[in-house]
């Protein structure tokens, strides 16, 4: 429409209205319900309504033994299943004051980075879908299937692995593991530039994301945002660097930091993180030391009285596991500080004033997994 036509339009008063996005909506990546207050297409307020997948995991942990708790965390953030398992195992190991062998540490790190890669791949595919590019979905899932096969061979499952146990891991890695991982890295190194060609440099995608949905460094800190969403705003918050666990202290990698903090910056973070993850795996895959796969623990683990906290970096931010033990075989209370919950709180702040379509792009680049938020 020409500018003149726009100005002679009758100056009507617009009214704010209210619309439901979700709980059954493809762009909310699950069953999140957003109560949107809109003025035309402008977002005035975003009010998330949670609980559509609240499965009472924290309460269930109070009835389970420490070994049984691990499998529940698979289902929390199912795209970071290995990392969630690792978090619980590390917290329990902290309580028991046992040291796992180097072999376990290295395998845990490789598995965690493979998980991060597969999570970021899925995120890349669905981000493309959210912004109107269906091809990305097919490309990402083609490559993701290779990681699933690696997991299946060693852990026996494709998605909910439950491979780590307090004190080590269930069983040793498959003889093919190293070969398969190296094959995958060689394959994905040629595919990741393709991802850039396909989506990162796409004009439509750039216009949908560049200069949209800013988050400043101060706001990111005060809302407690973690993960790539916060690092895009320049907040250095990578737990792998700040409080190295497992084998992260013996590998070289860069913490990717953004400068602008817009939607495209948050997108770029994850693409660059995939390169770093591959770099970490490459350093470790040929140097898996020999050693015990499980430290000696009692059949029923009892933690001493006290509180134990462990933080890890999942694919979408900081996961904290807080165990309060009263000396019995189950925890008195167990709390998960899930990254998605804190990241969701900032959506209202970031999306205000932008269009509904931008809200979808903003949501996509914070990468929510709803069972992780609701637990």
């Amino acid at each position, binding site marked *: 429409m020409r500018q003149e036509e726009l100005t002679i339009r009758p100056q009507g008063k617009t009214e704010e209205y209210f619309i439901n996005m979700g*709980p*059954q*909506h*493809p762009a909310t990546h*699950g*069953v999140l319900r957003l109560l949107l207050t809109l003025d035309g297409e402008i977002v005035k307020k975003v009010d998330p309504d949670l*609980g*559509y*997948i*609240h*499965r*009472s*995991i924290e*309460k*269930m942990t109070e*009835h*389970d033994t420490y070994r049984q708790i691990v*499998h*529940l965390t*698979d*289902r929390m953030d*199912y*795209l970071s299943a290995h990392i969630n398992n690792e978090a619980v195992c590390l917290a329990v190991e902290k309580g028991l004051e046992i040291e796992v062998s180097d072999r376990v540490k290295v395998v845990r790190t490789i598995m965690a980075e493979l998980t991060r890669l597969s999570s970021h791949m*899925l995120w890349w*595919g669905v981000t493309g879908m959210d912004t109107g590019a269906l091809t990305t*979905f*097919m*490309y990402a*899932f*083609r490559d*993701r*299937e290779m990681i*699933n096969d690696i997991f299946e061979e060693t852990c026996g499952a*494709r*998605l*909910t692995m439950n491979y780590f146990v307090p004190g080590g891991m269930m069983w040793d890695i498959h003889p093919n593991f190293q070969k398969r991982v190296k094959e995958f890295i060689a394959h994905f190194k040629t595919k990741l530039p393709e991802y850039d060609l396909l989506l990162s440099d796409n004009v439509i995608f750039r216009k949908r994301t560049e200069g949209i949905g800013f988050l400043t460094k101060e706001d990111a800190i005060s809302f407690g945002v973690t993960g790539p969403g916060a690092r895009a705003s320049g907040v250095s918050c990578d737990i792998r660097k700040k409080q190295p666990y497992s084998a992260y202290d013996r590998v070289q990698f860069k913490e990717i930091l953004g400068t602008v903090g817009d939607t495209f910056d948050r997108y770029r973070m994850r693409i660059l993180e995939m390169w770093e993850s591959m770099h970490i795996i490459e350093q470790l895959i040929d140097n898996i030391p020999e050693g015990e796969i499980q430290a000696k623990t009692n059949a029923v683990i009892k933690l001493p009285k006290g509180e134990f906290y462990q933080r890890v970096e999942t694919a979408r931010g900081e996961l904290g596991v807080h165990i309060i033990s009263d000396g019995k075989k189950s925890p008195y209370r167990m709390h998960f500080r899930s990254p998605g919950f804190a990241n969701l709180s900032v959506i209202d702040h970031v999306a205000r004033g932008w269009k509904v379509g931008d809200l979808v792009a903003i949501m996509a680049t914070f990468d929510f997994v*709803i*069972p992780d938020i609701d637990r």
Partner: protein
Amino acid sequence: MGMKEDLGPDFPGKVIPAGNGGNIVVTSLDAIINWGRSNSLWPLYFGTSCCAIEMMQTGAAKHDWARFGMEVARPTPRQADVIVIAGTIVNKMAPVLRRLYDQMAEPKYVVAMGACAISGGPFFYNSYSVVKGADHVIPVDVYIPGCPPRPEALLEGMIMLQKKIRATNNSTKVNPIDGFDEGKP
């Protein structure tokens, strides 16, 4: 006579050449309706949790359920034939699931994918918020066990559903939701 091959080997009828270039198809209404319905199942993506990822994987490059006529995944119930419940149903979600089911056009089918949709799965004991099986809310046609089921398992479940549809007698068919709330089988 090439028409039968064009229609696929499972076409339930006889194609008779009429001589003037046209063809006459002899079949029963039941067979042709079921053939059409079973080969164009549009699924509603109802992914609440982990199983949704395996469902996406089934729809994507390697497993590709488009081969069996299920490629057009709909996010809206009004255009869908089958609802794939991929994930846990909690108390807050149950009325929403029922509403989605009620909004779907007839005939409609339900596939319960994974342990949670079948019985509550890992959240059966000690959980205060999980519905112990989607069949407490809506009638289910096919159950696919697994936590989550592999893509191959989901494919087999969908093929089972196709077989079920092909065996339907449309004159004596009853709507599964009739009497469901009163507890009738």
